[in-house]
């Protein structure tokens, strides 16, 4: 398993934290290099207030990078929007701490109530519904936390080490450096990998990449470098990448990284 040098901690505050669905989210976050810490009130019949007290304490002891917080804590009328009350307390205590609200109210007045509650606070608060895939939850947390890790894993085949300036091919759990991707070529790859990490599918416009190319025709030079990166990465993984693979030119406006299937 590949992890970042320092694992960002995500605090999970949910009365159904042990459900299969939440386990799949935790598994994904773990694979992503996050460390998940679940708030466990001591009483098995814990109320929303118990979760609130434990969550606030955990913010001091765990010092998480983000909180994944449920909106509803059981069927008691006091606990149906308890998550918003907990959110208010978290924002008072740690105004800069990103909070992702995990809710089943995808739409409708209850969701609007929930959203209106969150908008009262000037903080990094976002909503995601409980049927979201683990990938979606991980992506939203990446953006809320807003830091790109030193090691970016691209699918199962590559790891980009931004600190060391090296891209590795991963085969059978072993990493081997791809030495031909260095200098400006590495900078292009890092720019594309960082954009993909924060927002997969978002195009990186030419003007952001052309600073890593040279010559009179910087666009043509960029095209050559991208081709060389694709060839080098393909060779290291025993693959051949075509125009619609790995790094794709979109409408002659820019490039987007596409993770190999």
């Amino acid at each position, binding site marked *: 398993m590949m992890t970042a040098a320092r694992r960002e901690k995500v605090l999970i505050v949910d009365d159904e934290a042990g459900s299969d669905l939440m386990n*799949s989210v935790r598994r994904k976050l773990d694979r992503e290099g996050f460390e998940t810490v679940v708030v466990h009130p001591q009483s098995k019949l814990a109320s929303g207030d118990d979760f609130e007290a434990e969550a606030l304490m955990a913010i001091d002891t765990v010092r998480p990078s983000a909180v994944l917080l449920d909106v509803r804590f059981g069927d008691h009328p006091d606990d149906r929007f308890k998550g918003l009350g907990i959110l208010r307390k978290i924002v008072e205590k740690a105004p800069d701490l990103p909070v992702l609200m995990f809710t089943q109210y995808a739409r*409708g007045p209850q969701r609007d109530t929930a959203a209106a509650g969150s908008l009262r606070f000037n903080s990094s608060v976002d909503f995601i519904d409980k049927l979201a895939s*683990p990938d979606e939850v991980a992506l939203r947390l990446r953006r809320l936390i807003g830091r790109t890790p030193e090691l970016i894993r691209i699918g199962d085949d590559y790891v980009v080490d931004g600190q060391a300036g090296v891209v590795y091919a991963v085969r059978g759990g072993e990493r081997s450096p791809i030495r031909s991707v260095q200098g400006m070529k590495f900078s292009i790859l890092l720019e594309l990998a960082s954009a993909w990490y924060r927002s997969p599918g978002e195009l990186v416009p030419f003007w952001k990449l052309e600073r890593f190319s040279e010559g009179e025709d910087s666009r043509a030079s960029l095209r050559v470098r991208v081709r060389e990166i694709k060839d080098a990465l393909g060779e290291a993984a025993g693959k051949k990448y075509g125009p*619609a693979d790995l790094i794709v030119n979109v409408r002659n406006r820019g490039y987007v990284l596409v993770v190999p299937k």
Partner: protein
Amino acid sequence: MAASPLLGGAVSESLWIIEPLAVAGAGLLVTGLVVGFAALAVTIRVGKPADDTGTRRRWSQMTQHYFDVFGHDMGRPIRRILGKERDVRARLAESKKSVDPAVQELLDEIEQQAPTFRLMVSNIQVLVQLEDEGSRPQTDPVAPAQVVRNVVDRYVGIGRERGINLSWWSEPAEFGLEYCDAAALDHIVTNLIDNAVRYAGSQVEVRLTRNPTHFFVRVWDDGPGIPEHFLPHIFDRGWTPEVASRQERTTSGLGLHIARTLARRAGGDLTVDTVVAGNPAHHTAFTLALPRVNPDHASGNR
């Protein structure tokens, strides 16, 4: 339980997934009933006398409440099914054994139906809301790029499984804020991207642009295009291509109808241009145009 000849003992224990599947079947049945109820409800409402506005408003609020509760309660079994499916998937991946293609297909089907279910429930909720004559679009400061980014998050993995690259960009790159109904924008873009990923060949492109009076979201796919004789019907409620070809429907046929209704209610529009297969430039592109509201005139309700 006897060991499966294909998967071995440990894995065959996972086949209790059949039970959740029965629950999934029941869930789909209930969804069907609710769609029927929604249609019936709307029919009853249309037949009501126009001067009975107070009763209609209460009735509408009651219906909305009913669907909220329904959406919430339906979420529970679906979350359980999804949780079990993802658990089985993870255990299969860890065991590194070869998986019966039928089992893999079953797991993939459940995973792929999840966003469809999500969208279907929210489409019904929006439909009920739209039928409520007392409800008005909200106007909030919204970052349209953020809305597109969040929806793409949901579909980029689904696209990848189907061999489709989903990409998006905005012009200008820093798009900033517009004033509109955030939930409506999210809902329209979700329906358009869901649709594009369903019919694309290998590419879906989403472009966010603006001029002095409007901002635009264009969702383009390189699919086979929409035949001319279908075009008058694609925004009709309940229409899907399967209806025309008498095949099993895979969607509710509400998405484009709701998307256009929401766009027009906000003073904008949803239009389509398409070139059908046979021409090398075949594609379909839906363009959402929404007016750029001066923040001084925006009626913020939050």
